[in-house]
């Protein structure tokens, strides 16, 4: 039996009562503090990619072995800059010092170009 639509009780609007949370209890204060701190960290801590690129490039140019004219954002450590495995590890160490955080070995393994280094560092909240 097809009931006519107009006879069905349809809600055209719903009024919901919203109560402001009491702000003064210790529990809510504490959780607010936590939430606030987390947001600040997240918002403030990812470095700007172009800044990271500049810093990574100057770090790599600092290597005696490297020809500074070849260092550009797309340079590959091995194929373009002629660096070997020991050099790459030295670069990782230099980047760790520059950006103030430790790069885990399994990630360090994959950083073999300027672009990969920049991508990795720019997406790491601990980078300074």
């Amino acid at each position, binding site marked *: 039996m097809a009931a006519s639509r107009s006879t069905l009780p349809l809600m055209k609007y719903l009024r919901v009562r919203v109560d402001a949370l009491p702000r003064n209890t210790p529990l809510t204060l504490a959780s607010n503090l936590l939430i606030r701190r987390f947001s600040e960290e997240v918002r403030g801590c990812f470095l700007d990619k172009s800044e990271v690129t500049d810093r990574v490039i100057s770090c790599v140019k*600092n*290597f*005696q072995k490297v*020809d500074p004219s*070849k260092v550009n954002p797309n340079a590959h450590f091995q*194929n*373009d800059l*002629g660096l*070997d*495995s*020991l050099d790459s*590890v*030295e670069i990782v*160490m*230099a980047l*760790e010092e520059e950006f103030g955080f430790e790069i885990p*070995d*399994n*990630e*360090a*393994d994959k950083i073999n170009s300027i672009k990969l280094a920049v991508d990795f560092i720019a997406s790491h909240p601990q980078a300074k």
Partner: protein
Amino acid sequence: MISLRDKARLMMNIYCFGRNLVTTAASYLPPVQLPTQREVHFWYILPDEVKSTTLLNRYLEILSPCEKENIFRMRGEQLRKGALLARALVRTTLARYQTNFQIDPKSLKFMKNNYGKPELDWQYADDWSLPHLHFNISHTSSLIACGVTVGSPIGIDVEEKQRRLKNDILAFAQRFFSPHEIEMLTHIADPELRLQEFIKLWTLKESYVKAIGRGFSASPFKTFTIRLRDHHVKGDIHAPPLITSKAPDITVVEASDDVKNPSNNWQFVLLELAGSHYAAICIEQNSVNTGNGRIPINLTLRKTIPYVEDECISATDSAVVIGGLTRLSD
């Protein structure tokens, strides 16, 4: 009746004398005998000795389209030359191990294992049957090497002795090496000596990780210790002759092992080459502990310029074994 081995040797000598016949010898690669078990063939080339553009073009001809593309994409003539020589060395060397007939080096196919380690692709070995050859390459700008074995994973690493580190050696070691190794390096007062020991350790560690073939991240340097220890040969009548018994024994200990019981599966050789480089070789062996001693690795060193000449290097000024139980054959 000349034996097959002598015949091969004779042909090799004739080949070695024909060093000026680049154009006529351009397509001839003398075959070589396969390494036996516990034997390593170590081939190397010095880029500075290869100057002929004709020869370099010849090398380019045997590369796969993919390899050529990779080389052309590189920036810098020296870099391209190094990459070209490395590929030419691998292809020509491996092609020589088929003694029944000539293999075109261009026909060899390579692949990478799950972790990126380059290997020969056996699927394509249709007409000829090459026994299970393993190889590993290492380059520096002044020396490119290729190690070959049969039936055993191999890893090699070569470094210039004069190499400088950008970072402080101890700071670097503290970040990447194991506690025992850091301690060993700290005890060396002379900075030059410390650098030499550091480079030796580095090459040995690299060769181990490359032999395992699962990349730096699967065997982080901090998790294993390489030790060089003088072993005392007390006039043991069972000690095989021709052993450089003064060379320290090299062992590896994984963090999980007891330090006193190093892993016996891996054997190392450390060489000083041409007075200018350290070379480390690591192979997997199910070594049989013969009392106090271990069975040595037979090592054949050949300096080569593919299509031109080979020079067999025995224990001379050009090569000194400085670690590991090795027998250098001539």
